[in-house]
């Protein structure tokens, strides 16, 4: 970065922290590598344009500061991905047309040549939906049966390539959909995404003998339909996404889960805090608990948007991720939004009636977010988020008030390829020419899977397991620039008011 660039960047960082929240604006675009190193998007941030579809460019995929290192496509994937050490795990759509049903275990010891080593086929692993999760500390892999009572848990400590089934049980009243371990790995919470129960707490202290602790339905007037969740380090606080529509029913719910953590008899759950929004981003999905510069936040994703009706109301047509300050859990507040240009109401004229919103297979999810992860939960600086048709988007979140995109990897469109394990393929139908992929899984960074180095792992529905290298030295403002901000802030005020947004984004 040049000195001038650093100066401008730091000034802007100093002066516009308010704008990211108070104005509905997309994050600055990444500056891609020059030459032929990247295949950048030609349209709005996240968009696959009609011209790209017509030319076939979408079949090559789009990259910005990323390279594909390795891939195991298989028969396509479902919603979730998780990883541990050198192994990746992703589910498939439980389609009878698949040659191999179940959750794939992929050995990525050689990142350039990942190979499948197992197919997990318990009732839960045939279709764990979004509940497929690893607990690194205890080296357990678990998932709940979508729409059913099944729950499976595996030991991956001895050989992550060959999980050992510890328990495959049916849990009364449970309906699998999403789920997550508590940080101590002794409780697994299933969230059925139903009116009742809202959650199922399962004691997995003895993973060979999972035991239900609580079936709990959130009382009125709380929206009882919970999507994914995370639990605080001490196990006493739960962060749940309340799956709702266009009103305050959609958002973050913070609950006191200490009775469950302490294994108290007749456990009670109490509300600590709640936050919702009305900006068009709906369909609460994931609350990722992170610390940025020592302060606790939730990176929260929504998986749906209001589409044209959102645009008509001046709101986002798609769901997007946002960063929520939970320093005061009773009063969580949004500090910034990871909104792509495709999600920006300012671009509705190009997005609401364009190919993104018609019958090109984007459907209700559009360019919405789904799952995020970070390089280091305890000191997050980089976030990678799956954004359905916009692929894997990578953000610099050093400055929590002003996140910016630093790269993306949009997997190739697979057209009419037969991929029975892909949910998107099943949804779209065999003859449908799928113009993009659906990237929906939670990405994995090395630290997340117990490694000290490596690349970003994720799965998408038509391209399966992928390993992507992020080139971090291209584009974006460095963190050091921020420290210079106060010195240059005043001098930059006139410049700021006259700069067009596109130029700001080049920073």
């Amino acid at each position, binding site marked *: 970065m040049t000195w001038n660039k650093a100066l401008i960047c730091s000034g802007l960082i100093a002066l516009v922290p308010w704008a990211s929240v108070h104005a509905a604006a997309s994050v600055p675009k990444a500056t891609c590598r020059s030459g032929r190193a990247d295949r950048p998007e030609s349209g709005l941030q996240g968009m696959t344009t009609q011209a790209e579809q017509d030319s076939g460019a979408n079949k090559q995929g789009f990259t910005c500061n990323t390279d594909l290192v390795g891939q195991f496509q298989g028969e396509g994937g479902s919603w979730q991905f998780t990883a541990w050490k050198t192994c990746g795990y992703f589910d498939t*759509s*439980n*389609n*009878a*047309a*698949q040659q191999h*049903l179940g959750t794939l275990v992929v050995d990525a010891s050689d990142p350039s040549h990942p190979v499948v080593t197992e197919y997990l086929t*318990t*009732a839960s692993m*045939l279709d764990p939906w979004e509940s497929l999760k690893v607990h690194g500390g205890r080296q357990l892999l678990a998932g709940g049966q*979508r*729409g*059913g*009572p099944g729950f499976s848990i595996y030991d991956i400590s001895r050989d992550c390539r060959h999980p050992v089934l510890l328990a*495959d049980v*049916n*849990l*009364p*009243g449970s*309906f699998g*959909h999403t789920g997550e371990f508590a940080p101590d790995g002794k409780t697994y919470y299933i969230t*059925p*995404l*139903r*009116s*009742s129960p809202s959650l199922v707490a399962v004691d997995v202290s003895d993973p060979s003998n999972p035991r*239900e*602790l*609580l*079936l709990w*339905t959130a009382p*009125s*007037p*709380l929206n*009882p*339909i919970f999507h994914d969740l995370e639990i605080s380090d001490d196990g006493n606080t739960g962060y749940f996404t309340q799956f709702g*529509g*266009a009103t305050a*029913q959609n958002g973050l719910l913070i609950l006191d889960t200490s009775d469950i953590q302490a294994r108290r008899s007749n456990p009670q759950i109490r509300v600590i805090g709640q936050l919702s929004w009305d900006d068009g981003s*709906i*369909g609460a999905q994931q609350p990722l608990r992170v610390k940025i510069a020592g302060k606790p936040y939730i990176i929260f994703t929504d998986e*749906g*948007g209001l*589409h*044209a*009706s*959102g645009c*008509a109301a001046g709101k986002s047509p798609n769901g997007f991720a946002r960063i929520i300050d939970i320093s005061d859990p009773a009063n969580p507040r949004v500090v910034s939004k990871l909104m792509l240009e495709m999600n920006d109401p300012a671009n509705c004229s190009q997005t*609401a*009636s364009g190919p993104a*919103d*018609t*019958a090109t297979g984007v*459907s*209700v*999810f559009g360019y919405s977010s789904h799952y995020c992860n970070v390089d280091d939960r305890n000191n997050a600086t980089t976030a990678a988020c799956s954004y359905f048709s916009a692929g894997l988007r990578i953000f610099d979140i050093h400055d929590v008030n002003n996140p910016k995109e630093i790269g993306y990897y949009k997997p190739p469109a697979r057209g009419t390829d037969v991929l029975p394990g892909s949910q998107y393929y*099943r*949804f*779209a*139908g065999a003859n449908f020419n799928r113009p993009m992929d659906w990237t929906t899984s939670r990405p994995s960074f090395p630290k997340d899977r117990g490694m000290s180095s490596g690349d970003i792992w994720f799965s998408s529905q038509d391209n399966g397991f992928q390993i992507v290298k992020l080139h971090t030295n291209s584009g974006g403002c460095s963190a050091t620039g921020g420290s210079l901000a106060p010195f240059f802030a005043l001098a930059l005020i006139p410049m700021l008011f006259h700069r067009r947004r596109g130029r700001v984004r080049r920073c």
Partner: protein
Amino acid sequence: MAREVPGTSRPRGTEREVKLRDVIPSRWQRLHSGPRPSISWLAPFAVALAVSAAHANGAFPDELSVHFPASAPHRILLGSNFGLLVSEDDGASWRYACEPYVTSGSTSSLSPANVSFYQITADGAILEDSVDLRRSADVACTWPASSGSVAGSVVSDVFADPTDPGFVLAILAAINGSSIVASRDGGTTFGAPLYTTSDLVTSVESARSARGVVYATKVGIRGGATLLRSADWGTTWNTMATLAGAGTQPSILAIDPADANTVYLRLLAGANDSIAITTDGGQTVQVALTVSGAFTSFLRATDGALYAGQLEGNLYVRPAGATSFARRSGPRLRCLGQRLGTSRIFACGDMFQDGFSLGYSDDGGQTFLPMMSFSQILGLLTCAPVQSACAAHWERIQGVLGIAPDAGQPRPAAPGGSHCATVGGEPSVLLVLLALCHHFRRKS
């Protein structure tokens, strides 16, 4: 319907989920054994739907089940993901009670809770299960919560006896297992458990042709599906046939209305779904049909024929006296049903792709004709509580369905009788409603 012999609207064990992706139209719903979209989701996508209606690319309302109360020979009830639709004139006209009101008495246009299923008692009372189990004795006008053992419990299934209007069975799930409880007052209150197990009871149903005969299915904590039978209203139970091994979810599709020893069962295993039949009271069970994917509907018709449908548009038919099923193309089936003693078959379809929300067949399922699409809903039920509580919802759903804003005006009751109070028909109320509709239309 299964719970209302002779037809079933939806196979047991078909748990519905609320999920944005469930709310996308039929193409998406093929993925789900029982998609259960919420209108709170549908509404936001209404405009998108309107924009690209030909592709049905937004979310849209959908059906859950169809019911034919024996006590009201012209009444049809259609459970949907945005409320309960009622016709008092054999399907010629339809009104509805909105889901927010049904599930919680809410006046909101968006429902925080979703109905998992509807059931009808022998005397026509309606039961719904969402957060609470609720009962309407006045054709969807009021919905008090049931009390007793079901209160605060997770209710996973309910069955209303087809002949005894007071007898209703429910399955309660708890952390240490599940139990079967019964109501003797039509679902108003439920008593202590009749049967408790550390396993999961997955379905329960009582017979029409033999009073007191009850069947249930259960699956062990570590797998293994079993059929249970009681001959004394669930007081004592016998373990009958083992239905399947680990990984299979069993449920009862229907007890044959003419033979209490014949039970139609569903065995959902992995990516396959099967219909199994016992004809000896559960001592032995034979698999009659296995398909890829999941069944969404089942009907044991008056003439003894069996019908099973899938969202993909597959209709499997076993004519009376036949021993095997034949596949034919059908609507994208969400439910099947038939009024007891008649021959017409009703089917819930895809409003856009099939051209109807509720259709019918008079030729044994060879062809289906439209009876109603959601866009033809006249408005809210005319009783005062629904008119009051569901006004905002109706305003919203009109936009979703593309219904003309004045369509909600109550009209003279059709033969068969109005079921609710008629406050909504007063001119002053009509004017207010019209003004509101006009106002909101302009705003939107």
